[in-house]
Structure formats: C-alpha cells, structure tokens
C-alpha cells in the first residue's frame, strides 16, 4: 500500500526530505538551548558561590548572543520545516488526486460500475485530505516527537542522572495509558461513525421527502425517530470522548509527579552533597526537559490516531489506483472504420466473471451499413448491454463483434468510439454553454456545423427561443433544460462526431411523439448512410425501422419488420396493443395532418 502511495510523491520529494531535516535541526537547538541557559543562569546567579568574581558584561553578551542566535536559527528551521511540510503534503495530495482522477479517466465501463459516483468523489476529497494530514504529521511531528524524546532525555542525563531516571520511568506509564485509550476508543469510533451516518441519512431523507412527511403529518413521528438516533449517537460519542478525556489529567499527573519528584530528589541530593547542589539553573532546565519529554509522548499519540484514521482512507485510495482498465487499444490498431456494417458472432456476455447468469446469450446478428434498427424489450432484457458492445464499452465474454468488417478489439479505441456514436440512456450535460457541450462531439466544430446537427436533432428551435441562444449556460446536471430538450442536445452532440454508426439508447423517451418522428425523418433524409440503432420504449419510435429486434431475458426473441412481428411475435404484439389500445383511433387522425 505504502509503495503505491509513495509513487505519488514525485516532484515533492525535496520538501518531503527537507521538512524532517529542518525539524531535526529545530529539535536539536531546542534541546541544547536549555543547557546553554543553565550555564548562563549559573554565571549570573547572584547567590551562586561559583560566581564570586561577579558577573561580567562579556559573559552576558556572549551567552546572550549565542542564545539569540540559537533562537533565531530554531525559528528559521521551525518555520522552514513547517513551510516544506505544507508544500510536500499539499503537493502529495494534489498528485494523489491527479493519479486517481487520471486512473479513473482510463477506466472502462466495467471498472466504473465497480464504484459508486459518491464513493469516487469521497475518495478524491475527504480521503485524500485525511492522507494529506497524516503525511504532514509524519514528515514533521512524527519525526519531531521521537527526536525530542531522545535528545531531551539525553540532555537531562547530562544535567542530573538520578533525576533523569524519573523520566525514563514515567514515559512508559504515559505511553501505556495513551495506547490503552486509543485501543479502547477506536472500535467505539468505528461503530459510532456508522450510527452517525445513519442519523445524517435520516436527515437527508427528511429534507428530500419533506412533502411526504408533511402530507402524512409525520413531523412528530420523524422527530421521535431522529431523537432516538441522535440519542444513540450521543451515547456512544460521549463514551468515546470520556475515555479520551482521561488523556489530559493523566498527562498532568505525569508532569506534576515529575515536578514533585524533581524537587524532592533535588533537595535530597543537595542535602546529601551540599558542595554539588542541584541549584536553580538545573531545576529550571530539568522542568523544561520534563515537559518537553512528556508532551512529545502526548503528541506522538495524536499522530498515531491520525495515522489510524488515515489508514482506512489510504486503503480506499489505493483501491482506485490499483484498479486497472481491461479495455485498451491494441498495438498496430486499426485507425479507420470503413462503414457502419455490424456483425455479432455468437456473442455472450457477463458483467462479472463470477456472475451466474449471462446478461447476453448466444447473439448472432448482422446489421447492414445504413440500416435503421429498432430494439424493443422490457426492463432487464439487456437492450443496453447489447449496444454497449458495439463501441467496445465492454468486452464480450464469448464470441466477437465486428464493425466495418473488423473485430472491435482490433480498433484504436478513439477511432472506434468516434465513428460509433452512442447516446447513453442515463445521459448528462455538463455545466457550460450549449456550445461548450456540443463541442464534446467535435472540439473545433464551427457554428454552422453545430447549427446543422441541432436542426437534425430538432433542437435548434428551442435553442433559438432562449435569450442567449447557443451561448445559454447549462447548469450542472442540465437542470435548467427539460428532459426532452436535454435528450435532443445529447443527440446533437453525438451527431457532431460525424459517425458511421449512431446508437440511441432510449434517448427520445422524454421527447413527444411528433418531434420524435421528425428526428427520425431527418435522420432518414440527411444521414442515410449512417447505421442507426434505436432502443425505445415506444413502439412508434421503432415502427418504421428496417428491422426490429425484440429482446427478452438477454436473448434475441425475434427479428423482423413491424408487420412481420405484429403477425408473429407475442411480446411485440403485447407491447404494441398496450400502447395503442386507446389512442389508435386518434393516431390515424394525426397522420392526416
């Protein structure tokens, strides 16, 4: 895991190394300074027998100079290490996000299916932030604390050996308590975060479903439900926080006990040997070391917690980074699609290797270039699955698909997907102007080209009705255009690719029947050579196709024209009559217009 993550450090290796170096310098200075101060106090101490010759101006200047120099150097190193740690961790986080995002861009559809959108977003935001914080801690605090501990202890020993043993004894006591606290609280936190999520989900459901709540007059019921959930969360959080709240008093206990013992032992030592007293200078310094050592242990425990939190996040990040696309362009790929001829040869398909059932089974199909094909079938009949194989969004499990006489696996992916334009069922427009969105189909498309495809897709009329016309800004998720308008824009966008095959996966469901018919008419007249595959719910959308494929349960149930199927196919007939039962009388009237 660490190796995968470490690859993302890259250009931020330098700050990543400089930060611990500077922090080490800072620690060494911070540990040496008390020693110098000790000597300084010894020199200026009016009651010290050693300074009988009196305090010298030069002593003050020299020591003062040295100390200020040390403080300056320490300030500089501390600042620099902080600076570098920030740069290294922010850069590392940037690279992690980038590597993940890039990896996801290279995912195939089956890779994408494995992760939910919201989980991919969390991984690129919250999880990266967690790892970033942990990384910053590791290259700074996690270096600083152990060094601080060791140096302070060593220095303390040079001051007074007997008293220093107090620290050696207290460190494991404090460390043990902190570790126990972490071990005790971690499972509670894991548990409570689940409950916390549940509580927040209940809030989300209430916000979304407020009309339902209010219509059924369930405000009090929901309040009760929420109060139970929040009570539950509160209980666990309180428990965890109370265990954590032991930290502070224990820390204080250790520090104060060390002070007490320092004073006591210092007095005893001085009494034992008045010629070598533990004077004020030594006491001051020992007190400093005591708090430095113990707070280093404390901070170390905080780093530990941070790393524990970040570990789960790191695992989730690595999962994304390690997921490799299974669909890539072959070497010596074919870079030209000759025509829109499509052939399915004994094609079977499963969404995952372990799936019991084939989503698509034994499909043999030939679509001639320029034909219009309709596909009909209920939910779960695998209509989308079938067409997804043509631009090689998924690879077949068995058998092969040919476009223009060439196996799709031999094509350069970009060539294939540009010539086989797919309008997805769950389609999205992106925030930006209509033109921005259309240019997805062709980056350097001219205004005339855009106008042409929008007319083809019957989108020009409503675009012209917008005040900003083609420069109308589309909100995220396309919320400011209606479903039918969105679908037509999506079709226009696909048409800009100038494809040889055009696949509409239920892409006119929100468009009214008349416009739907007009779109099909313009397809017939304007792009006769393009193979058109139309998946639809409405029989009227496919009625006039050259061939209609009826799908059922992952298999082709029947292929034929409208008349043939109406005469021979049970499913087709059922669907047709369910839709035309009441409207057949007026449908005839409309045709006369």
């Amino acid at each position, binding site marked *: 895991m660490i190796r995968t993550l470490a690859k993302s450090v890259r250009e931020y290796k330098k700050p990543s190394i400089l930060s611990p170096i500077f922090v080490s310098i800072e620690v060494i200075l911070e540990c040496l300074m008390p020693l110098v101060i000790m000597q*300084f106090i010894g020199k*200026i101490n*009016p*009651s010290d027998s050693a300074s009988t010759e009196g305090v010298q*101006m030069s002593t*003050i200047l020299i020591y*003062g100079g040295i100390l200020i120099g040390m403080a300056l150097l320490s300030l500089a190193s501390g600042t620099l*290490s*902080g*600076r570098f*740690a920030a740069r290294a961790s*922010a850069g590392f*986080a*940037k690279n992690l*996000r980038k590597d993940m995002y890039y990896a*996801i861009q290279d*995912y*195939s559809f089956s890779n994408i299916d494995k992760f939910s*959108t919201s989980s*991919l977003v969390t991984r*690129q935001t919250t999880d990266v*932030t967690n790892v970033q914080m942990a990384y910053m801690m590791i290259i700074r605090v996690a270096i600083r604390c152990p060094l601080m501990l060791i140096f302070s202890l060593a220095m303390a020993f040079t001051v007074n050996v007997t008293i220093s043993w107090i620290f050696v004894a207290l460190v494991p006591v404090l460390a043990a308590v902190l570790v126990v606290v972490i071990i005790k609280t971690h499972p509670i936190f894991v548990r409570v975060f689940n409950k916390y999520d549940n509580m*927040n989900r209940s809030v989300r*459901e*209430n*916000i979304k479903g407020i009309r339902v709540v*209010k*219509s*059924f007059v369930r*405000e009090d019921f*929901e*309040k009760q439900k929420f109060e139970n959930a*929040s009570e539950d*969360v509160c209980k666990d959080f*309180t428990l965890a*926080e109370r265990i954590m*709240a032991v930290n502070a008093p224990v820390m204080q206990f250790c520090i104060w006990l060390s*002070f*007490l013992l320092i004073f*006591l032992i*210092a*007095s005893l030592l*001085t*009494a034992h040997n*008045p010629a070598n007293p533990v*004077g*004020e200078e030594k*006491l*001051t310094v020992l007190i400093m070391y005591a708090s430095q050592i113990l707070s280093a242990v404390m901070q170390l425990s905080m780093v530990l917690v941070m790393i524990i939190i970040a570990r789960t996040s790191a695992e989730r990040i690595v999962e994304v980074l390690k997921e490799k696309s299974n669909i890539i362009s072959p070497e010596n790929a074919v870079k030209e699609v000759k025509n829109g001829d499509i052939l399915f040869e004994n094609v079977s398909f499963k969404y995952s290797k372990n799936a019991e059932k084939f989503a698509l089974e034994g499909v043999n199909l030939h679509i001639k270039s320029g034909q219009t094909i309709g596909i009909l079938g209920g*939910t779960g009949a695998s209509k989308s699955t079938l067409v997804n194989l043509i*631009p090689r969004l998924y690879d077949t499990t068995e058998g092969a698909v040919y476009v223009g006489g060439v196996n799709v696996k031999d094509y350069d992916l970009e060539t294939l997907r*540009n010539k086989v334009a797919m309008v997805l069922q*769950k*389609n*999205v427009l992106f925030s930006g102007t209509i033109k921005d969105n259309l240019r997805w189909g062709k980056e350097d498309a001219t205004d005339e080209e855009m106008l042409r495809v929008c007319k083809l897709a019957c989108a020009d009329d409503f675009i012209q009705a917008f005040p900003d016309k083609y420069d109308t800004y589309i909100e995220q998720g396309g919320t400011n255009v209606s479903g*039918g308008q969105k679908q037509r824009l999506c079709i226009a*966008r696909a048409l800009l*690719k100038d494809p040889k095959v055009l696949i509409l996966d239920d892409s006119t469901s929100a468009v*009214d029947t008349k416009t739907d018919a007009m779109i099909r008419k313009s397809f017939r007249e304007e792009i006769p050579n393009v193979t058109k595959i139309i998946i639809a719910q409405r029989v009227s959308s496919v009625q006039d196709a050259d061939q209609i494929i009826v799908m059922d349960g992952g298999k082709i149930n029947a292929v034929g024209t409208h008349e043939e199927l109406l005469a021979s196919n049970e499913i087709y007939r059922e669907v047709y009559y369910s839709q035309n039962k009441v409207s057949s009388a007026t449908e005839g*009237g409309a045709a006369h217009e």
Partner: protein
Amino acid sequence: MSKQNMAMQGKPKIHTFKLLGRLLSYLFHYYKLRLIAVFICIMITAAAGISSSVFLNLVIQQIIDPLRGGAAWEEIRSDLILIIGGMGLMYIIALAASFFYNQTMAVVTQGFLRHVRNDMFARMESLPIRYFDTHTHGDIMSTYTNDTDALRQLISMSIPQVYYSIVASLVLFVIMLLMSLWLMFVVFFGVALMAVVAKYVGSRSARYFIRQQEAIGKTEGYVEEMMGGQKVIKVFCHEERAKEDFDKINDQLCDASDKANAYGNILMPAVMNIGHFAFVLVAIVAGLLVLFGAENFSVTGWGVLTGATIATFLNMSRQFSLNIGQVSMQINSVVMGLAGAGRIFELLDEQPEQDEGYVTLVNAKIDGDGNITECAERTGKWAWRHPHQADGSVTYTELKGDIRLLDVDFGYVPEKIVLHNVSIYAKPGQKIAFVGATGAGKTTITNLLNRFYDIADGKIRYDGININKIKKADLRRSMGIVLQDTNLFTGTIMENIRYGKLDATDEECIEAAKLANAHDFITRLPEGYNTVLRHEASNLSQGQRQLISIARAAVADPPVMILDEATSSIDTRTEALVQKGMDALMQGRTVFVIAHRLSTIQNSDAIMVLDHGRIIERGSHDQLIAQKGVYYQLYTGAFELE
C-alpha cells in the same frame, strides 16, 4: 486587499461577539450548573499548573539555598515536607478538578450537540415547504454535518483551552507583580511580540483555511460532475480534456492548501521561538540587573534580585508562551466553529409554519337521519368538528372530499403571480386531471390544496369549509399524496407502507399492498415484507418503489388523493402494472391527477388544461377532443409538453 481586510475584520467583529454570547447562553441554558463547576475547576487546574513556578521559587529559597549555605538537613526537613506536601495536596485537588472538568466537558459537549441537533431537526420539520424549495439540500445538510462538527471542536476544545489560558495568564501576571516588575516588563514585551505574530500568522492561516475550504468545495463539485458523467466522457473520448480541466482546479486547491497549512504550521514554531527570545531576554535583563547591582522592585517593595526569582521568571515566561501558543492554535477552529454556529442559528431562527386553523378532523358516527356524533374509536367515518367562536357552539360536517377553488390567485413571491383566477369544482369521488407544460402551474395547485403554500386571493373550500380554518395537520391527514419522487425511507417495506397509518396492522398493510398491485413483487423478494430498503431504495426498480408509495397512500385511506406525475419515470410496460394499482386506489375518492402521459388521464371526470397559470380549457376527454383545441393538439402529438 486593504478593503478586503476591512471587510473581514471590521463589521464581523461585533457579529462575532454577539454570536459567541448567544452560543454561550444557549450552552448555559442546558448545562448551567455543570458549566459553572467546569469553569471553577478549570480555574483550579490552571492555577495549579502555574503554581509549579511558585513552588520552584520556594524550593530554591527555603531548601536549596539554605542547604547550599551549609544549613543542617534536620532543620530543613520539616520545611521540605511542608512544601512537597503542600504541592502534592494542591496537585491532587487540581487533578481531581481536571478529571472532573474533562469528563464533564465530554458529557456537556455531546449532550449539547444532541440538543442542538434535536432542536435543529424539530425546527426544520416545522418549517414551511417554501424553506426547502428555496434552500439547496446540500446546504441544509451541511448544517448537520460540517457546522455541527465545527461546533464540537469549538466547545470541547477551543472554549476550555482559551479560558484556561486566560486564567493561567492572569495568575502569571499576579505572581510576576509580586516578584519583579522589571522582569515582568520584559516578559510582557515578549508576550506582546508573540501576540502580534500570532495574530498576523493566525488570521492569515484562518483566511487561507477558508479559502482552502472553498477550493475543496469547488473541486468536490467538479469531481462530482465528472464522476457522474464518466461514461459520457468515455463515449466521447474526452479523457484528455477532462484531465486538463481537472489539473487546473487541482492546482488551485493545492495552492490554497499549501498556503493554509504553511501558515498553520508556522504558527506554533513562530510563537514558541519568540517565546525562546523572551526567555533569553529575561535571562539577559536579569544578568544586567545583577551586573549593575540594580535593586529589584515589585508590588511588595524593593529588594534584592535573587537567583530563585530569576529561575522562576524564566519558567514563567515559558509558561506564558506555551499558553499563547495554545490559544493561537485555536484560532482556526474558533473561526470555523463560530461560522458554523452562525449557520446553525440561522436555521433555528427560521419562522415555523403558521397555523391558525381550529376546525379539526374527528371520528364520527352518523345515524339514519344524518345526525353526526363525535366518538373516540375508529368508525371509518370522519367529520369536521367546527367550533364557533361567536356562540361557543360546535357543528359537525361529514368529511366527503368536496373541494372547490374559487378565483384563486397565487404567486411564490408576491411580485410574480403564477396562478390567475383558477376555479375548480371537484365533487366527492370525481377525478380531476391537470395538463400543461412545465411551469404552467399544475403542481402549484396541488401545493395550495394541502396548504404547503397559502393562496394570495380567492377561496378554497373543503366540504364547504374555508381551508384556512382547518388545522393544517387535519387537512393534510385527509389527503393522500403520491409523487413522482417516491421518497421511501430507510427501513423495511412493511414499515414504509405503515408510514401512511402508524397503527395499521400487518394485515392492513398487506391489504393495501394488494390494492396497489405491489403484493406480488414484494412476496417474490427473498425477505418479502421485511426487505430492508437502503440507499434511497436503490435495490428496487423505480416502478416497484412507486407501487410501495401507492400502497403507503392506500393504507392511509384518505377521501382525497393527489397524484403528481406518479408514473412519469416508469417504462410503459411497468406503467400498465402501476396504473392498475392507481385505478384501484382512486376508486371512490376525489382525485387530483397530474400526468405527463395523456393516456393515464383519459377517464377523468374533468381535465383542466393549464397555460401560464390560467385554465385555458376544461372538460372531459371526449369534449376536449371534440373542441379540437390545445388538448387535442397535445393528444395528437402536435404539441410538446415541456
């Protein structure tokens, strides 16, 4: 830049103290005694923490110096026992106080957060629909998550820490006054320097932190859009462009994060090292004082500067800088916490839905002569209980489902009227359909019926009673609603159906499911009615979810039903199934239907064609077809419903 500075620091300051004051009084409201105890205990702990300097002074003066001077151990021993004993006692008391306040704060913080959450939720539930229509769900949600988290940090860490530091600084100040004014000035100089640096670095850190949050928000929004459209990106081979765009936003975030953390990281070493300066400065000044044999001066009078005093001061100057360091580390969480508190108060300050209704819905018995008597048990009959303020009498009207809209005008904002002169007469058991483009006002009318919004002009009468007189809860209870967005709740299918009538038995729920045509598919699920719906019921198809929501409305058994685009996002084959359930549900009720597919409303008693808030055509299907007007055009596909 300077303008921005002023904008950031000028006005909000007053605001900040107001917020803090309100937050504290909110806290005290729930935990007055405990908080007072906590404040006293923190005081004790802080004083004890500082006392180490005093004891250091005592030990040097009373023990070490005499010993050094050749005093006998026996003379000193009792003093030592006294000092160490006193110190020990003080520490024991302080430890008890510290343990108490840390534990109490843990309980108070979490308990308070629970209160805040419950208060927010209770308030949210009471808010009018308008609030939810005018605030994004993400914003409301983030009050519960981000803002509450920030509040936790503020209450559990920052407030006690800042208070502790203030107390400790005050105690230090007093001790310094007692010991040496000269050295105190030196320490103050250092402290002032630290404060300036802490404020400079701290405010920058806070500013960049907020900028970082914004950058994170932007990145999140972008990533969310891209991840949602990932398949489109693949289909259009748009990967390289997507990468380029991402890099730009990612770089911005990196930059903001770098700066925010850099200032954050610099804060502590800067303050601590200035502390070292102050420390060294104290030593130098002390040395100079000793060198020139200057007299020490304190509030207790003139005296000799002793080694003990110097050592104590050095220790105190270190304690001072530690305190300031601790406070400066809290700047970010104070800024974020108060901002969060501000948003939480905003939600709590929202005006709840007003209700002046006094007509209530009661169970009723109706005898052969049509006399209505109120009763406690469920009879299957309902009546409006109408008390008359004038003479104190009470009349009862049977609940039938007769709804009339008379010349209703309405606008979501007063300046923009979206419904004009709408009049509708729905007799009990009739089916009324609304047809029209998006924004024509179909859903708006249904919003008025159950008073999600109140009309601007005109009247709505329910069984002859002005609906403004009916208690909202009772009004809504008498109407069932099925929306396009099913909004099922996490829980079992049984629980979701029971939502319509909380005291419904399992049998009643199953009966309702059968009526809604949902029973078949439910029993085919491995867990049947105990199937748990998760993640907005994504384990069911849209059609199945809709069937459950119809069953939910069915179990409530209201005399009036509103069906708002209930079948729009279902494929036609499933729709046939759902339609059967709906037809069964509509039997014998007054029904208002909004539908995209005209086939579902043909058998309505009356169809209203709406355009820009006006009813432009009304009549039965056959009448409207014969009229050859807008409805006819819609029906024949010459017009588009958008």
